């Protein structure tokens, strides 16, 4: 039941490299070879210079918390089991921002600008979800 209720990503041809990398424990993002911009989420073109010369590149998986909240109500039945849980906007050292839960961490230590590193949560046999934890 819980598995059914958890929204699980369904990769497309375009986003498959992101999820393939995640399955190997790597946070990969698009980088434009024409203008040098990183971008997230993935597109077939660069939103900065309109070039289609965008390639997948491994990130350091390191960043800081731009902002966050602790959810005291669950967005779906699956997340109810995890209450309370942290949702954050991560600013990667490379520049792009993404959303993640802050896991394996003391909720009271979560703060804006705190350093975080990527980790991965197995959702099912195909999907490993990028998450973040506080850097000790």
């Amino acid at each position, binding site marked *: 039941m819980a598995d059914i209720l958890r929204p699980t*990503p369904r990769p497309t041809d375009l986003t498959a490299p992101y999820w393939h990398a995640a399955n190997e424990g790597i946070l990969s993002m698009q980088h434009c070879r024409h203008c040098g911009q990183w971008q997230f989420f993935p597109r077939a073109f660069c939103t900065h210079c309109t070039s289609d010369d965008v390639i997948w590149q491994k990130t350091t998986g390191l960043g800081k918390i731009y*902002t966050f909240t602790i959810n*005291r109500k*669950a*967005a*779906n039945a699956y*997340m109810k089991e995890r209450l309370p849980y942290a*949702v954050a*906007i991560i600013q990667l050292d490379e520049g792009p921002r993404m959303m993640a839960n802050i896991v394996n961490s003391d909720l009271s230590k979560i703060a804006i600008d705190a350093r975080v590193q990527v980790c991965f949560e197995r*959702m099912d046999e195909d999907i490993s979800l990028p998450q973040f934890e506080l850097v000790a």
Partner: protein
Amino acid sequence: MKQTLSRSVAIGGVAESDLGKVPGKTALELQAQAAIAALRDAGLQLPDVDAVFAHTDDRFSSLQVAEYLGITPRYVDSSNVGGMSNIMHIGHAMAAIAAGMCSVALVTYGSTQLSDGSRKSGAVAQDSPSTPRGQFILPYGQLSPIGYYAMVAQLHQHRYGTTPKDLAEIALAARLWAQLNPKAYRREPSSLDEIMSSPLVADPLRTRDCCLVTDGGGALVIVSADRAKDLRSKPVYVHGIAESFAHHYTPFNTGDWLDTQVAQTAQAAFDMAGVARDDIDVVQIYDHFTIGVLQSLEELGFCRRGEGGAFVADGALGPGGRFPINTSGGGLSYGHPGMFGVFLVIEAVRQLRQECGQRQLPKAELALCHAPGLVFSCNTTMILGV
């Protein structure tokens, strides 16, 4: 919009449908009820209407509403950009009227979300798991929209030292206004302590930092300035209106979450109207969450960035306060049927017509309405005057 269109259209009729908890009626029925009442307010009849703006309840809402009302308009618009949609529709109606595409526009909204229980889970996972939202947002269980605004509040507290009491001031002011409005849904006495001790939903926001969940509908009748002179009610003219758009539900590229293009939108509306902030008597700001009001006050330029907490202190926003706003009681205490834009306009028009009884502001010649859509995804500012 260009300055020559300032005062080219007027809001000639406004009305709410039944409000609060309305079991046994559909959102479409509420829209029709409000539409008929707004037409009567204007002294117009259904055959006068030649444009319909409606954005909820159906993917083809404007057609649905037109069919239900038994009219065959020559212009429709079902654009949905969240809570501000009905204000945006006024701008679109202004452009369409100027282009000769219509002359009497009906703007409607209705929702039965309280009776349906449709917001109770706090998240609506309507996207396919392949969309950007489906892949990169929904797996993380973010409450939406409250989780996003909680993140804004967190940022505001971190950067400026804003406190839970500052936010509670906004909720309390709304309740004090609601006590002066017989149509408001929540009118019982409250206090800062009660608000600050309500349950946390998404830190730092508590249940009392959040708008109500109610049923209800509203409608506006927009006509050309020429036509406005013959109406039953005192026309309220659109002096300025502007809008801007940034993202959907995946705001990864939105730079500073405390600088969301509102200043630029507001300035465009002021420029079109040819007025300044100090000229405004009536302020209606979308209060989905207390932090949204604080942020809007700062971004609109009514106070300096970071000084919102001091600006709203000591009952400033409430009856008799230094800067009275949201005189209906707002989304926080009057009612919030999902998208509040139309209700901001209804209250502004009633203030400008001096129809607000106990909550009437002493001077009400120029009003400002401001609203965002989705999760600070877009925003609109409109200036109205008699």
